[in-house]
């Protein structure tokens, strides 16, 4: 299911004195099966955009199409998206509501009409995927640590096995190993199920490591899209949009200020860096 967005404008509380324009004329296309990252400074419109994809907001102007479902300003019913698009919201505590962690995670699958047995199986599997210890299944989701709460919210969405998985800052508050494991798991699920993943993140390292396509928002407009290797090596322009280079890119830049010939700029992760440096070193050893 491709996601196509055309001239999307969203104005909160339009026509009131509190009117707030959040998106202006956004055009974009996310091909089915992509791992897309949406990045941009605070208030640039990321959460507003993905709430459209989730069918929770309607465009003020313009339209979007997900598979064969089209949503415009006059669309009455966007519930057809339910079950297809799963969203992990920015603040997970707004998403949890059941009496226990297990019931909370089972809610989505049961709502999709799955049997209690199957729902149960999915709960166990999702808890394992997000690294929640089993003994927390019977705990109230409001009596968890911050990171455990976020894991529970993510598990609830993964258990629905949506075609499109939308993640708004899914790793904020997770410990670094948990972050890595969660995103590795999501990348694996995406390959296995040909799922589309849309990640909103303030971590340039995450966007660089996992995304195959990057969309940059700035003050409600899409200012750039393309491959991470191209966008993350734009230097000063990133800062203009309130972003920064991934650490690996910064390190390469420091090295290249002195190194002749320079290393390729498109090294985005520590693995890329390792390979490039080792290759150069071995080259030098055997002239």
């Amino acid at each position, binding site marked *: 299911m491709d996601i196509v967005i055309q001239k999307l404008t969203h104005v909160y509380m339009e026509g009131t004195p509190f009117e707030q324009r959040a998106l202006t004329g956004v055009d974009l296309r996310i091909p089915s099966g992509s791992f897309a990252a949406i990045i*941009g*400074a*605070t*208030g640039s419109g990321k959460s507003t955009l993905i709430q459209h994809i989730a069918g929770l907001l309607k465009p003020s102007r313009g339209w979007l199409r997900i598979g064969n479902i089209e949503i415009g300003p006059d669309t009455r019913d966007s519930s057809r998206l339910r079950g297809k698009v799963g969203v992990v919201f*920015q*603040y997970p505590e707004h998403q949890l509501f059941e009496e226990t962690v297990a019931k909370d995670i089972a809610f989505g699958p049961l709502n999709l009409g799955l049997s209690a047995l199957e729902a149960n199986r999915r709960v166990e599997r999702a808890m394992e995927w997000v690294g929640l210890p089993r003994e927390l299944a*019977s*705990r*109230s989701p409001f*009596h*968890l*640590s*911050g*990171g*455990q709460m976020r*894991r529970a919210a993510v598990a609830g969405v993964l258990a629905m096995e949506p075609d499109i998985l939308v993640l708004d*800052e899914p790793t*904020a*508050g*997770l*410990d*670094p*190993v*948990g972050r*890595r494991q969660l995103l590795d798991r999501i990348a694996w699920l995406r390959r296995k199920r040909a799922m589309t993943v849309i990640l909103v993140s*303030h971590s*340039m390292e995450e966007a660089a490591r996992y995304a195959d396509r990057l969309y940059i928002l700035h003050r409600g407009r899409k200012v750039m899209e393309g491959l991470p290797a191209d966008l993350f090596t734009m230097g000063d322009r990133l800062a203009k949009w*309130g*972003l*920064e280079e991934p*650490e*690996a890119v*910064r*390190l390469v830049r*420091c*090295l290249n200020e*002195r*190194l*002749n010939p320079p290393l390729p700029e498109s090294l985005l992760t*520590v*693995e890329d*860096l*390792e390979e490039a*440096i*080792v290759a*150069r*070193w071995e080259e*030098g*050893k055997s002239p």
Partner: protein
Amino acid sequence: MEPIIQLDGVGFRYELPREGKSDWSLRGIRLTVHRGEHLAVMGPNGSGKSTLAKLLNGLLIPSEGCIVVDGLDTRDGKTLPAVRRKVGMVFQNPDNQIVGTTVKDDVAFGMENAGIPRKEMLERIREVLDRVGLNGLEASSPHHLSGGQKQRLAIAGVLAMRPEVVVFDEATSMLDPAGRKEVLQAMEELHRTGTTVIHITHSVREAFCAERVLILENGKIQWQGSPRELFLQSEEVCRWSLEVPLAVELKNRLRERGLPVRQDIVGTEELVETIWTLLSRN
């Protein structure tokens, strides 16, 4: 070094709605925080960091052991308001901390509750907004601020109470890179001017700014020392669900591949220097 907070044999268990008491979320904590110190607290999810933070300002009271803040025992109900004034807290979600309809009202809120006279209040508002760099925005609605500005507003509200200690519980984790930088600068400024800063974080880059790092795991203090010492022991760091800085990870990988890179490198600059030397020599 003069102690500002002392914990002796502190343990804590939560009250659960159905099951009664939870397991120990913290156990056997002995810790002295020094006046003016910049301490980072790290550890896996659920290891007890936020519980520790809430114990420090009396939001939670130890199930066993005791905590003394600048001479005041947090178990003593009468001194709790004083403890809360001494130890301010800044949390993760900036939106949840905003109470006022303007920036100025928001800062005033805590002081009004504490009965601080109006004249003094106005002076303090000016002073703290200046310190966090929000002067000029007094009449703005907090909801129109950026994430970094909201967090600095939360810090201003805390500073207005003239706390001795400010605890940041993942206060940067929801911010964009620019916002994170703003808050870290505000934190540095506090530390420089003598306030004790306790910073709970999952970010190694942020922990690097601290003088001492404390690692919690399973409700116990597993390790403490300087950031540099911490990142030299990569294996343990991984066991504690943390990560090492990029430069350290790259160094480890290069060493494993047989490149002659010194073991004691932790900083980016040192590593860049080393790699440059290596690659230009041959």
